């Protein structure tokens, strides 16, 4: 089974030595987990772009497992 690792990164232009600046917030994390989409929901169907400006649909990821991680390299 193919796995697609789909990493959403911000300001991904150099990697910083600083620890991740995102602060953990238990209350907001709990809210996030019960906010849709939740486990069992479909991944929203959206159109994004390739760096050349061509459209890419999230539906095209079907057919294999996808890990989507919002990271930040700054």
């Amino acid at each position, binding site marked *: 089974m193919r796995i697609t690792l789909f990493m959403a990164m911000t300001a991904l232009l150099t990697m910083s030595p600083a620890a991740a600046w995102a602060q953990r917030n238990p209350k907001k994390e709990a809210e996030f987990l019960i906010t849709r*989409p939740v486990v069992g929901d479909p991944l929203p169907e959206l159109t994004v772009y390739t760096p050349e400006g061509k459209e890419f649909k999230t539906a095209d990821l079907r057919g294999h497992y996808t890990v989507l991680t919002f990271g930040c390299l700054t």
Partner: protein
Amino acid sequence: MFFIYKSLAHPELAGNYVQPFTLDERLAHARQAEKQLGATVPWLVDAMDNRLKHALGDRANSEFIVDPKGIIVRKRAWSHPAEVRTDLEKLVGPVENITREEDVKLKLELPIKSAAARGVVPRLKRSEQMQAIVIVPKIDPKGPSFFAKLRAETDPDLFRDGAGKLYLGFHLDPLHEAHWNNLTKPLSFKLEVPEGVKIGKLSFESPPVMAPSDSDPREFLVDVENWPEGKSIRLSVIYYACVGKETCHTVKQEYEIHLERDRDAGKARGEGAGFWDAEGFARQNLARDKNGDGKLNKAEVQGLIVPHFESFDKNQDGLLDFEELKPVSDWLNHHHQPGTALSTPK
């Protein structure tokens, strides 16, 4: 596997990159990221309405695992690589060859060099509490590029009481490779405020700069009172931006500024992100010392240090100690804010 470019979480960090105003500028950022990181992983770019970021809950460091039918089977508020691996082993089965960080083959090149020196004009000190607010640039497809881009932030007081400080900063976009021409009239702007809004003054001009050119932001703090939500302030700016030695543009641009928090604008961190003091930097990095020997081996460092590890390891013992880590901060400040002079010779 894809990298996704979305709105910058920390504009000004790591090369003074600023939030793009157009999809073309976002695409250019993603192409720069491709080049700079040098990874073989393809990139995708979120749309200007940040639909992907919003659709998935807008949470830094969150994680989703989606099955082949497109159904979300795991959701975490805080991603952890070991947990992802365990999940995938449960869902898909164990793998023989684990992909490691080094397999991604990041080149980690340095950011775009500023078109002129930085660190010439002192940065304006502004409160860490300030929050970015929505700005709407008036984009004329036939007009000049937004060589300088406005960032607006306010005190939390301004939301609460309608009175407080408004930060207006014009940041040169490194992708347009322009610098200020200080031999001509400095940047100036005018504000048009809704009726009833009290503001210190309506016309502003950047103070003259002795150096003939530089790339530092032009920043202003304005006292505002009685700004009702739903009513925008209009700003019109005029500046001279030069690309190379010969080509200078007279640029007139307009913005609407709304008293509405911009949750996609990121946190620029006060007077300029990406600066570390030497000792604080060394201490912060030594927190990554996993084996407790008080020094960092190559596996314990991250980011731009990795490809330059050997050059920082002055005594060539394969480890970076406190004294060796201190000058790294200076080196990083220089490269994260390209154009800033190195104060410690390498």
